[in-house]
């Protein structure tokens, strides 16, 4: 192993003696443009190098000419034979894109799987050897292994006219479309997160990496039950069960696409690629794969590798020449959503830290990173923190109470400053914590009646307590119709189930890994909360271990960010595949330790005996 000093980036990396510099640099995060795929035919990956290297190849002499004498090389042709130093001109770099969403941030090389380039068709000369497709490929500056299918060849045979400018659309190594340049035409991609409860679609312009629109909707499958177990039961025990569930999610996804495109004048046919994350059951149902094995120990998925599928095979109405990429999964209950969250949180890089990632959805996935070691498990949280199955719960959107604070009376923050309609996940965490702090909620989770609280709690707060048939409820606000928005006793019970599942999962995972909560350098919380999850309140409820708050970071819908990264940067797909392959998965639900902790973790505050 030799050393490569990258002067322009001020870093030094190890380099094996049998891999091209292009690949070695890419592996260490220095991405160079190489449209020819490292074949030595495009001349784009040029660098300046000094030190012990193989002599310049014929390809380099041809493409670089005199520059070779000034130390210029093509990195794809360079094999180190000793320590070397290189300088990389900006023109050789893949432009970088920064993905930032809800706290997760990552800079990645901008290199989408879908690329559209223009070329002008010219009269062929006598020495223009090869087919018309070969010439098109050359004009597109495409990689050497570009292929084309027969339907597109037939089109090509009628399309090409001298002097006309065309747009060629390439997906992976396939040329899928050649059309006269239309300045209004778009190349869009969608990052799609299929949750058990919520589906989110984020449309991206694949030529710029910029966001076009986002939409979310309740998964129509909830009609068949709130959790994955009921969906698996439905799919496997009802005659048309799988089809019904597949249709339901498809309807939801198409609705999200329509909503996300609503404000643009674009259509579904502008969408060329969809990058999909979701839990393993959701991906099986979306793909129309019978999920029986997910309902039986050892809960093995039918497929877990990344999949590329034509959209019409899934019943999607997006551009039929496009591609749907399903990110890889880890296990039956740790899916592509977790893999997405992991790449969003840079868990593919070993920072030497001990970190915990908790992706809180209907199913909560946990990943522990200790040095290069990664362990994942899952725990069934239920949909409470997504606002579902709560009496006045809703998704984070206009009209959702997202923040609650107690003074003499309640102080609310409502998304969009609208009249409140209901309460979303972050608001749920706040109200439960504030009620406990005020002494209105006892350690077992019972909301005290107003009679017991006179003199202890302010009269304004007391006045908000309503006796109901099934316990006491707290009135947060009134809606447009003057009806109260209540936080009920049953809601508290839902929260207890959810937070107990999460916390007992965390404790069991730490136990298996031999890590103490105090050893955690960082706890990352991902999930479909609003934007303002109050860390202190989450800790007070016991969702997360008792560690200093500065170590806790909220990263939003990291799974969706992961899907977006895989959309704009092909490198992320490679990393995702590697992560899914190397991570260790453990089964914790049902173990005696988990069971014991589950009940303890139901309690609030001092009742907590963990």
């Amino acid at each position: 192993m030799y050393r490569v000093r990258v002067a322009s980036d001020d870093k030094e990396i190890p380099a094996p003696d049998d891999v091209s510099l292009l690949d070695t640099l890419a592996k260490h995060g220095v991405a160079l443009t190489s449209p020819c795929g490292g074949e030595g035919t495009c001349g784009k990956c040029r660098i300046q190098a000094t030190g012990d290297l193989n002599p310049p190849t014929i390809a380099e002499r041809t493409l670089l000419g005199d520059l070779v004498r000034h130390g210029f090389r093509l990195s794809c042709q360079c094999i180190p034979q000793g320590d070397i130093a290189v300088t990389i001109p900006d023109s050789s770099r893949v432009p970088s894109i920064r993905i930032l969403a809800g706290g997760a941030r990552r800079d990645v090389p901008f290199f989408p799987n879908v690329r559209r380039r223009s070329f002008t068709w010219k009269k062929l000369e006598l020495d223009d050897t090869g087919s018309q497709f070969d010439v098109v490929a050359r004009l597109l500056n495409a990689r050497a292994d570009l292929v084309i299918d027969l339907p597109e060849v037939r089109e090509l045979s009628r399309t090409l006219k001298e002097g006309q400018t065309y747009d060629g659309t390439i997906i992976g190594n396939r040329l899928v479309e050649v059309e006269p340049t239309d300045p209004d035409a778009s190349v869009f991609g969608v990052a799609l997160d299929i949750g058990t409860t919520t589906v989110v679609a984020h449309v991206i312009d694949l030529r710029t990496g910029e966001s076009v629109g986002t939409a979310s909707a309740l998964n129509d499958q909830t009609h068949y039950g709130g959790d994955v177990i009921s969906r698996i039961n439905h799919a496997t025990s009802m005659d048309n069960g799988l089809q019904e569930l597949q249709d339901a999610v498809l309807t939801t996804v198409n609705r999200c696409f329509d909503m996300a495109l609503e404000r643009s004048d674009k259509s579904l046919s502008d969408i060329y690629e969809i990058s999909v994350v979701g839990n393993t059951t959701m991906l099986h149902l979306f793909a129309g794969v019978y999920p029986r094995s997910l309902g039986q120990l050892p809960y093995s998925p039918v497929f877990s590798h990344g999949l590329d599928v034509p959209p019409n095979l899934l019943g999607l109405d997006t551009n039929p020449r496009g591609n749907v990429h399903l990110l890889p999964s880890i296990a039956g209950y740790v899916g592509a959503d977790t893999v997405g969250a992991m790449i969003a949180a840079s868990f593919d890089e070993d920072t030497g830290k001990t970190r915990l990632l908790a992706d809180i959805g209907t199913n909560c996935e946990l990943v522990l990173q200790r040095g290069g070691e990664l362990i994942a498990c899952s725990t069934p949280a239920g949909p409470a923190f997504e606002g579902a199955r709560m009496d006045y719960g809703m998704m984070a959107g206009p009209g959702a109470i997202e923040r609650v604070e107690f003074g003499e009376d309640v102080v609310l923050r409502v998304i969009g400053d609208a009249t409140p309609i209901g309460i979303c996940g972050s608001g749920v965490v706040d109200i439960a914590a504030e009620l406990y702090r005020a002494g209105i909620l006892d350690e077992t989770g019972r909301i005290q009646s107003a009679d017991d609280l006179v003199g202890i709690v302010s009269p304004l707060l007391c006045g908000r307590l309503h006796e109901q048939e099934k316990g006491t409820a707290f009135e947060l606000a009134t809606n447009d119709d003057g009806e109260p928005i209540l936080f009920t006793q049953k809601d508290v019970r839902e929260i207890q189930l959810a937070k107990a599942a999460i916390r007992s999962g965390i404790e069991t995972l730490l136990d298996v890994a031999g890590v103490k909560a105090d050893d955690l350098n960082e706890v990352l919380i991902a999930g479909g909360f609003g934007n303002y999850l109050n860390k202190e309140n989450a800790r007070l409820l016991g969702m997360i271990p008792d560690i200093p708050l500065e170590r806790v970071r909220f990263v939003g819908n990291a799974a969706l960010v992961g899907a977006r990264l895989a959309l704009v940067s092909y490198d992320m797909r490679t990393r995702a595949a590697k992560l899914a392959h190397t991570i260790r998965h453990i089964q914790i639900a049902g173990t005696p330790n988990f069971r014991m902790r589950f009940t303890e973790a139901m309690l609030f505050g001092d009742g907590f005996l963990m």
Partner: protein
Amino acid sequence: MSQLATLAEHIINGKAPLALKATEEAIAAGTPAADILQKGLIAGMQVVGERFRNNEFYVPEVLIAARAMKMSLEKLRPHLIDQHVEPVGKVAIGTCRGDLHDIGKNLVAMMLEGAGFEVMDLGIDVGPEKFVDAVKDGAQIVALSALLTTTMPAMRDTIQALKDAGLRDKVKVIIGGAPVTQDFADDIGADAYGRDAATGADKARELLSA
């Protein structure tokens, strides 16, 4: 309120430290262990069961109440043994092969304990042969749980294994779980079906008195 009624109240409210204290006080006052069990712990859990059945209590309340009951029972157990108080019966319980969803099963186990049974918790993913062994060890009732339609057939296998071992007439079989129905119980020849954890414990008592 009598001392034991107070104990029952603490169990119902899930106040473990208070329940434990009340149990210790009753023991110190020389109350017979059988009374503390019957009028305190069992009485309390019976109310919990009723409320659960009427949807007034949810799973967390039952688990928290059962936790209080268990802590008191641990304190009481040596006295029960000293005073030769026998359990109502002996139940072997587990989720059937292929199933590891045990929240429901744990609830039933707690309700059974709270009803005075000795519970042999065989855990999760329990194969038919383990239930056969448990019956040989004296279990009078086998209680089977399944959350998944895909694992329900394992219940039939367990009953068959009991038949094959020549033990079927020595044991009662009760089944439950979200996808399980009375029809399914009849179909596979189970002796009873428990719609929920509290009903399951009631049915278990009935099975032994029948």
